[in-house]
Each structure stands twice: as structure tokens, then as C-alpha cells.
């Protein structure tokens, strides 16, 4: 396997920001995200902040209700 990469600790759960196709998500939309494995933390407009098992990320990205998924990046102080 990938010896170098496997030396590093890889997170099992990823924090993500999800942009939905719908402008104003309803409860059923959020429930659907839950079914896809996303643990919803906060909804801001049609953006959803949450965490998801790394293994389920591809399924989330491929879902028709999802326009875009970004991993939560740690930013640096200026």
C-alpha cells in the first residue's frame, strides 16, 4: 500500500461545509443529509456546517441535492 501516506494519521471524520441546491433547506433536506452520514451542526442560508465519516464523503459529494462540498480548512492568523 501507500507506505508514506500511511505513516500519517488520517482523520476518520471530516468537518465540511456543504452548499445545497435548494435556496432555503427544510427539515426534510437536512434529514436527507443525515441519511448521507452528515452530522449537521449549523445551517446558514443554504450552507450547512457539519461533520461526516471520511468513508461517506464521496457519497455526499455525489448526491443530487448537494451543489458543492468543501473541507473545513484551518486558516492562519495574519
Amino acid at each position, binding site marked *: 500500500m501507500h*507506505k508514506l*501516506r500511511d505513516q500519517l494519521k488520517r482523520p476518520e471524520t471530516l468537518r465540511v461545509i456543504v452548499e445545497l441546491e435548494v435556496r432555503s433547506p427544510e427539515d426534510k433536506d437536512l434529514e436527507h443529509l443525515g441519511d448521507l452520514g452528515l452530522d449537521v451542526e449549523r445551517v*446558514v442560508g443554504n450552507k450547512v456546517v457539519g461533520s461526516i465519516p471520511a468513508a461517506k464523503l464521496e457519497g455526499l459529494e455525489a448526491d443530487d441535492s448537494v451543489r458543492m462540498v468543501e473541507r473545513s480548512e484551518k*486558516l492562519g*492568523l495574519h
Partner: protein
Amino acid sequence: MAKKKRVAKPAKKAAKRRTTKKKTPAKTRHVRSRRRTPESEAAPERSYLGKLDPMLRLGASRAKVEARFQTRAPEVPAAAERPEAVSGLSLGIQSLASRMSKVGAERLRKEDLVSVVVDCRAGESVRDRVDQWGGCGTRVSPSTVVARVPRTELESLARLSAVRYVEASTKLKLHSDLAHVSSGLVRAGVRTVAQTGAGVLVGVVDTGIDVSHPAFRSGGKTRIVNYLDQFTDQEFDAAKIDAGDAAGSTDTVGHGTHVAGIAAGNGGGSPNSSLRGVAPEADLAVVKSTLETADILTAIAHIFDIAKARNQPAVVNCSFGGHVGGHDGSTIIERTIDELSGPGRIVVVSAGNEGSDPIHAHGVVRGDGSTAGRWEAKFSLSPRTFQGESGPVELGILFLQVWHQREDRLKIRLRAPGGNVLDPPAEGSKEYDFGSFFVDASRQVHPYSGDTLVTFEVITLPQSQWLTNWTLVAEEDSPGSATVGAVHAWIRDGAEGRFTTGATFEYLIGMPATAYSAVTVASYATRNQWKSRDPQNPSIHLEALALEALSTFSSPGPTRDGDNKPEVAAPGEWLLAPLSKDALASELPLFTRVSGIEYASLRGTSMSAPYVTGSLALLLQKDGSLDWGEAKRRLIKSTRQDRHSGVCWNARWGYGKLDVERLLTIEPNA
């Protein structure tokens, strides 16, 4: 006999000296002769005076004159004509005293002691001599003595061979920070605008805040109306903060406290509250953030929710950033900022401190139609220690994002040090493992902009042959397949590696500063000296730093899609603002901590952004319904240019220097 001998011997010696003098070579005689002339007094005088701070020379000279010619004392203006606190002192000391606190000046008048900082070779002996003269000294380092010296002994002090330099201890200047003068907020010690930020909410997303700092308290109560700690998920309102409930949510970095103080500190804890922030009467809402984009997004929304509940206009400061994304405002967090901004809702972001970092490469890949255009940039990785599955492991890890426009069909690939060529798939990702290095290459069309993003995650062994000589190659799919041909590549962080060829020191404003609606702020210098708590460097003086010049670290624009960012430059290099009592020494070293008060001197676009945040709070006090578009228009219209900024807009200064006075007086339709 004995008496005769005692008389005779000196006579003989004197005769011998005279004889010797006659035999002395002419050159030596000449030197000795010069020492007897009036000019000869000047040489050693210059020598010791050169060791005295010019501020002290007047005092020393005056003391000497007064000691010799007591009758000339009336040269000093009559007491009635002099400032009361310093009457009875020589002119030099009056001048010195005018730079001291009232208490210090009073003591000076009574005891005629001068506060000095002495740079010397033997601190112990210098301190002892000062004590012998009736002064008092403290050796703060092997080469530094802080002392109060009788005025009449300043000359003696400077004459000591162990003394290299005697500097007047001026402490802080008792007027507003230099930044306020540069920005037009203060002239002749008086604020030029009536607005103080009252009724406006200043939001700070940062490392937290020292809620006990007097700069954030007024009338015995906190000015912080809401404090959210994203690490513990605790939220405190003003009542809870005053009850001490937020004491555990400390600012151990010190960054957030400083930033909040620049924007909205009221000067508490500084002499005569002289170190006020820009909007000293604004309310504060602070989020101690993890600085993950997911939490930042939540934090900004939270602050605007607080503002809505309080029916207040709000401006939120973001003094952080990163280099993941299209650098065109298309990341989710940037577009969320756009959506959250509106009438009475403005977000200010620092441009970044990567102005000198070779982390961006740019080229145009466009052939002549018969041959495919091609462009290359080389880069190297920096070895670092990571936490591995079985303990610390040293590796090179670099995250590279390459963007090109949707109009173009390009091949983007990597050439490894050994010559292997690594192609991303047409869509999705592909892994390459060569034992000594691993590469994850992926390609996607960005859902928002439609541009193509190729990402490489490179992991290598820490030996130099695997860390260096990597090449990014971009070429047309076929001759003429590029319409625009612009290729931009960013290394995520300068700590991961650097471009060794192809680097361009532009397009270095990261996200979320490239958000379309955000006000993006560059930095220039307004201070190069202060008194620090560092015993090794009690008087910081950065002589090479030109005041009013752009900070070399300030990240230049424009954005990848050509948006004119930064919009404005503000004071950001060495600003004095509140120091968190919990700031770790590893975060804010002694030299940054101002002597005698709980303030720190820091620099960065992190400091220039809150300066603009505070300024916009003043503007929102005047008109709470202003949206970001009109606020930007007025900012741009009111900027000033000088010989440092040159013609604006330009990629480093934006539209020029912030001018608060003009910003607050400019007509809406100007």
C-alpha cells in the same frame, strides 16, 4: 636633611621632566600643546557628549554652566513663564520633563534626578557609581542599567569608560498612537471626527479576548455584549462576563485582544487613556474561534444574529486567511460572507502577510497556433515533523492547487525529481506511489466558477533529492486550445515549500479576503520604536523601517479574476493595543510587550484590518443602513496617496491610504 631631601627630590624630578620634554619629538609636543588651547577642550567634550542622548546633552551642559556661573542663572526663563510642573529646571530638563508623566516631572523637580537608560560594559560598577552620586540604579541586564541620576552627574556618567551610551528614559509619549495621526483620526492631539462608534456592534472573530482588560470596560461594566467560545461551545452575555463566568475563556495567543483593542479599545490601562482604539465607544461581540472555515462561517453568522437581536449595525473583523481556493471569491465561506453582508452589515478581512513569500506562480500558456504553448515552474518542499501512526515522523508534505479558466483546454502535470510524469485523471483523483514519494493528483471543474482546478498532494521522504527539483508543467492540449491561457498555482502554506522558478509576488491575497463584498486591507508602517519589557532590548528602535511605507509583508492583489484588491491600506506595522494578561511568552515575546502598561506592539495585516473595522464602525454610527458597496465607495473616494503609495489603484496599496477624517465627511454622492 630629611626636609631638604623631600624638597630636593621633586625639584629634581621636575627638572628631569623639563629635560624630558625638551627631548620629546616635535609631534608629541604639538599634541601636548594642542591640549592646552581652547579648542583642545572640545575634543574630549565631543567624545563624552557623543555618548549622551541629545535630550540629555542640554541638561548636562546646562548643569555645567550653572555650576560655574551661578550668576547667569536668570537666563532660565522666570518661573511664571514656565510650565508649572517643570519650573526651576534647566531648559534641557524642562524638555525632558515635558515628555514625562506629571508624577515623574514632580519628582524630577524636587530631586533633580534624570531617568536614563545606560548601555554599558560593566553594569554593576556603573550602578554603584550612580548610587554613590546619590542616584539609584538597577542593572536589568549585563549591559543595561536603568537609573535616576543627579542632573549634575550626567556628564560624569557619560565620562565613565564603561559607559557606551546614555539615553533619556522617555517611556511612552503621552498622546494618541501614531497611527491615528497618519490616518487623520487625530490632529494636534484631538480627534477630528465626532463619531466614537457608539451604538455600533464591532465583531471580532479571533483567538478570544481578555475580558478583564480595562480597555474593554466602561463604568465598571464590560463593553462586550456577547462572547462565544467555539472550543467549549460556551456563550456569555455581558451579565455573565461581569459575573466572572467568562474568565476561563482566555486569550492565550493575545492576537484577538490586540485586534479588538485596535478597532474598539477605549484606552483603558494606558496613560490618560491615550491609546484608544478607533471606535472607543462601540459595543463588542467576540468569538474565540478555532479558525476553521466551518467555524468562521458560523462565527460571522452568529455576530450578525447578535446585531439583529440588538437592532444594531455591525462590522465584523477577520484577521486571518489561507491559500486554498480559487482566489476569486468562489469558496463557500467567501460567498457566505457575500450573502450575510448587506445594509448595516460589513465584513473586513486582512489581505495577508505573504507579500514576500514565493508561494504563487503564474504563467500564460498560449502557443502560436502551430505549436502547443507550454509553461513550467519549479518548486521544492520543506521537511517538517508530523504526528504519525507510530510517533513523530519527518516528511515533506506540500499541497498545490493549480487553476485555469474554463475557456482553456490544458494539460496540468507534475514532473518528479527522478523524471516521472504524474498526470491527474480527466476527472476525479489518482494516486501515485513510488516509495520515496507519494502524489495524489485530482482534477475537477469548480461547481461555482466553472474553472478547472487541479490539485496535487505531494508527500516525500525528507532527503534533499526527493524534496527538490519538482516541476509543475502546463501546456495546451493541442495547438490553439488555450484562449486565455492563464495558469495560477498556489502552495497552501510557505512552511510547506516554495516556488524556485516562476514565482510572482502578486495574487497573494488569500481567502476569505478575496470575497467580493469584503473590505480587504493592506498594511503600512506608522511606528518604529517603543519601550519594551525585554531587558536585553528595553528601547526598541527599528531604524531601517521607513514610516508611512508599505509593510513588506503585506500581501498584494489582485484576485485571480482581476478584482481590485486590496481596497485600502491602513496602519498595521507596530500598533500599540491591549495585551492579554494570559498571552503566552511563546506567542508574544517580551520585546512586543510595552514597558509599564498592559499593551503590546504588534504588526501584520491583522492589525491594519481592525483599524478599518473601527473606521467603518464610525461610518455606521453616522449612517447605520450603509451597505458594503457604499461603504467601499466612500473608503475608496476618501483615500489619500503619497510618494510611498504612488498612483493608485495598485496591487499593493489598493486605492491608497485610509483617511478617516475624509471618510466621515465625504458626501454620499461625491
